């Protein structure tokens, strides 16, 4: 467009009209996507936002024990709080019990220290009467923990409406009177669970790559008729329900199941091997379910690679293995990237397969989130664990989008 530089600039009115038309065109394109955007915000993004926000919200104690919360706001934590705070506690517990909000406050406090719930409920049953004399000694008489500053420290922390405590608890940290500290080793769960989730997902991804790459290569280099016929072996398991495949492994890996029977028949084992309710079961099941993603992603890229580069390298004297590694494999990196991304991102969110085929030491983060929500009703901790899991997923997504590009995600 050499002429463009010399031509008169577009008249002002024309340029404005052009811009307005472009803006209108952009708005019209956006209008097509708007119904889906609104729908996803309402039934998907808003709920997820609400759960993630739960990780920093702490309303229960402030709502149930308003006077204590106010009284402790200015408390330094050096000595026991003054007696009006004890009186406020007596009044608050009585009021909260009447309104039915005491249990949720007790449950919230229990997240700091097991036993806190029973302390609150026990105290509520024998509440000292302020008219009968000084309240503070009466509280200590009910339970000596009321005479410890740490107890009051936890109530103070729990009455803040915005709290970092769940986010800390989700990585086994605790904010005490003397700053951050790690939980005692026997109470640490989540760091290990994140590491385990990462390790299982990474191992599954690697297994899928090792097993899937050669298959994709063979399928991509066979004549189309043959490769189409073999493709059924990949697609049919792919279309088969996840539950069916997990059920199949559940049956096959039993101590008296098919795999053990075949191993014994072949004379390889005397005793049945423990193949399920342990890491082996999780890895076998997850690799089986996710392997087709890896094969299909690599196949899609390899199909478009011309064999002539590799042939050229060999004809110039390269060893076939070197030609493969130095000339062919680099051309397949987008496929490796897409497959690795898909398998890893799906694996870190896995729930069903580890729950059915895994044992006690194989719990993944998803299972712990479900447990916190389902059994413990601890929305804050479920939210905090979700925050880390979602951040991890997004990090993987952005790495993938940076190096490979999300436009390469194809399904058809």
């Amino acid at each position, binding site marked *: 467009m050499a002429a463009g530089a010399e031509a008169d600039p577009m008249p002002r009115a024309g340029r404005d009209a052009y811009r307005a038309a472009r803006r209108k065109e*952009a708005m019209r394109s*956006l*209008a*097509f*996507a708007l119904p889906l*955007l609104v*729908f*996803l915000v309402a*039934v*998907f993004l808003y709920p*997820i936002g*609400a*759960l993630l926000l739960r990780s920093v919200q702490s309303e229960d104690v402030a709502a149930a024990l308003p006077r204590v919360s106010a009284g402790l706001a200015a408390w330094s934590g050096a000595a026991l709080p003054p007696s009006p705070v004890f009186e406020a506690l007596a009044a608050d517990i009585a009021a909260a019990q009447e309104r039915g909000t005491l249990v949720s406050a007790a449950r919230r406090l229990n997240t700091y220290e097991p036993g806190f719930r029973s302390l609150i409920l026990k105290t509520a049953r024998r509440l000292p009467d302020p008219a009968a004399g000084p309240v503070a000694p009466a509280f200590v008489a009910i339970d000596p923990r009321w005479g410890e500053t740490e107890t009051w420290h936890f109530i103070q922390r729990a009455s803040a409406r915005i709290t970092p405590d769940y986010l800390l608890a989700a990585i086994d940290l605790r904010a005490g009177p003397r700053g951050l500290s790690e939980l005692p080793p026997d109470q640490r769960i989540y760091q290990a669970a994140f590491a385990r989730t990462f390790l299982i997902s990474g191992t599954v991804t690697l297994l899928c790559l090792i*097993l899937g790459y*050669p*298959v994709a290569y*063979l399928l991509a280099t066979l004549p189309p008729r043959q490769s189409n016929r073999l*493709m059924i*072996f990949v697609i*049919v*398991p792919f*279309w088969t*329900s996840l539950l*069916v*495949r997990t*059920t*199949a492994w559940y*049956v*096959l890996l*039993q101590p*008296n199941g*098919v795999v053990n029977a075949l191993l014994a028949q072949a004379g390889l084992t005397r005793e049945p091997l423990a193949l399920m309710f342990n890491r082996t079961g999780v890895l076998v099941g997850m690799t*089986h*379910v996710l*392997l*087709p993603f890896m094969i*299909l992603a690599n*196949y*899609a890229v390899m199909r478009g690679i011309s064999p002539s580069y590799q042939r050229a390298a060999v004809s110039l004297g390269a060893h*076939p*293995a070197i030609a493969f590694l130095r000339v062919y494999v680099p051309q397949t990196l987008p496929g490796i990237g897409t497959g690795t991304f*898909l398998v890893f991102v*799906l694996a870190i*969110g*896995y*729930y*069903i397969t580890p*729950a059915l085929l895994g044992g006690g030491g194989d719990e993944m983060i998803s*299972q712990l989130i*479900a447990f916190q929500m389902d059994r413990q009703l601890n929305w804050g901790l479920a939210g905090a664990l*979700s925050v880390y*899991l979602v951040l991890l*997923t997004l990090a993987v*997504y952005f790495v993938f*989008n940076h190096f490979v590009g*999300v436009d390469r*995600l*194809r*399904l*058809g």
Partner: protein
Amino acid sequence: MQSTTLTERVGRRVLRLVSAAVLVFLVAPVLIVIPLSFNESAYFSYPMSGFSTRWYAALVSSEEWRLAVVNSFIIGLASTAIATVLGTAAAMGISRPSFPLRGFIMPLLISPMIIPIVVVAVSLYLVFAPLGLTSSHAGVILAHAALGTPFVVITVTATLMAFNWNLVRAAASLGAPPLVTFRRVTLPLIAPGVATGAVFAFATSFDEVIVILFIGGAEQKTIPRQMWSGIRDQINPSILAMAALLTVFAITLFLVIDWLHGRAAPAADTRG
């Protein structure tokens, strides 16, 4: 003529052997379910103790399984309809060169595919429970529709890459209203992409269990939900009969897709 060296031939042989083993690993567990579902024994033991169709009889006579099959299809079809309409419309917008904020909106649209499903399920429970949408078909259908939309968006967008927008302009210049243009010009051309997306969305719903575990009630039990309790709570070999039927269903689905697309390499939602 291309000459092959010994190394290449050996390499090729090894490649075939390894690939054969992997393909057997992939397909054998799926197919072995079919003979095992005729096992007479109530335990998942092998060798089989005898041939019996009792688990199929148990399946057919079970009111719970009948309800699960009906639910799976109601929820699957309803959520697919929503996902297909919304996803196709969105793809029509995204594929236009004038689409704004693509880098920001695209991740939002495909997020249901990559956000861990347990996080989705817990979030939906949190928001749906106060609205009375838990233990309701409506709640599950809305949730499954959201999970299915990325598949429709991706397949239809891919189809539209090859679409000639001049056809739309030509129709408009000849006086066709936009809806008529869509129905008579655009839709017939992108129909294979829309249909593929719809099959993906249906498969996503049909295979989904975690959201249902959290927000569905006894009335919303679907086939996978029923299989989950079949393994988890009461070990019942009728789940093998259902698994065998679903395997046959998957093969049928494959043939449908194959017919739709000439030859397809699709991806169902298999988040566990």
